């Protein structure tokens, strides 16, 4: 399940929905990303997240489908917020449920790594020097690329 929303999310409720009524699930791995109060050495007062309605949801669905293709998952979840958020606010929740913990951990990290480089979201930060658009990080590209390397049988990915 994927969702883009302005509101905060209730992790407990989200994860309960994910696991509810499926006693095959042995483990749920999740990751929550938060707004930090500094970025590249500058203080951050807030950030605003923009997305591409339609394409964003489509890409999130494709990324989730790819995770289900690669790992034996019982369920998965991506919730991403948009709009203006202050430091400490949760931005994104990704979670995967599987019979075994290794599959849950790996697929959860895969979801956030691919989301960061393939899902159309953009962050604009408010710093002491004014507003600025966050630049893509080479480390994020490398993390996403790493999963492509790990799945050579599937060939180059275009998700």
């Amino acid at each position, binding site marked *: 399940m994927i969702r883009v929303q302005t509101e905060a999310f209730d992790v407990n409720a989200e994860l309960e929905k994910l696991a509810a009524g499926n006693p095959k699930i042995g483990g749920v791995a999740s990751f929550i*990303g938060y707004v930090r109060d500094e970025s590249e050495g500058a203080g951050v007062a807030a950030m605003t*997240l*923009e*997305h*591409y309605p*339609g*394409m964003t949801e*489509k890409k999130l669905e494709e990324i989730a489908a790819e995770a289900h293709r690669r790992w034996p998952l019982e369920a998965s979840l991506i919730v*991403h917020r948009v709009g203006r958020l202050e430091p400490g606010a949760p*931005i*994104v929740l990704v979670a995967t449920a599987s019979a075994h913990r290794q599959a849950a951990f790996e697929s959860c990290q895969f979801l*956030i790594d691919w*989301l*960061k*480089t*393939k*899902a*159309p*979201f*953009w*962050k*604009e930060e408010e710093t002491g020097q004014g507003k600025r*658009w*966050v*630049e*893509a*990080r080479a480390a*994020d590209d490398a993390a996403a690329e790493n999963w492509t390397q790990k799945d050579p049988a599937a060939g180059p990915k*275009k998700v």
Partner: protein
Amino acid sequence: MKIFYFAWLREKVGLREEELTPPENVRDVASLLEWLKGRSPGHAEALKDPRMVRVAINQDYAAGNPPVGPEDEIALFPPVTGG
């Protein structure tokens, strides 16, 4: 043809979207971007460094220089930074 702009491309162009009818010689991504540059100083500024521009056609990433047609939904934006 519908064109969407996001993030700083949107700010530089000064538009969220526009509905355009490019001339006949605009048949692929490269010729479309070149033609768009001539529409205004904002467009020229936004598109001056093609390495910073990602292109989506009908909500899928465009790799290389695929064809574009009048019914296509095109989006131009910088590398994504969500998560």
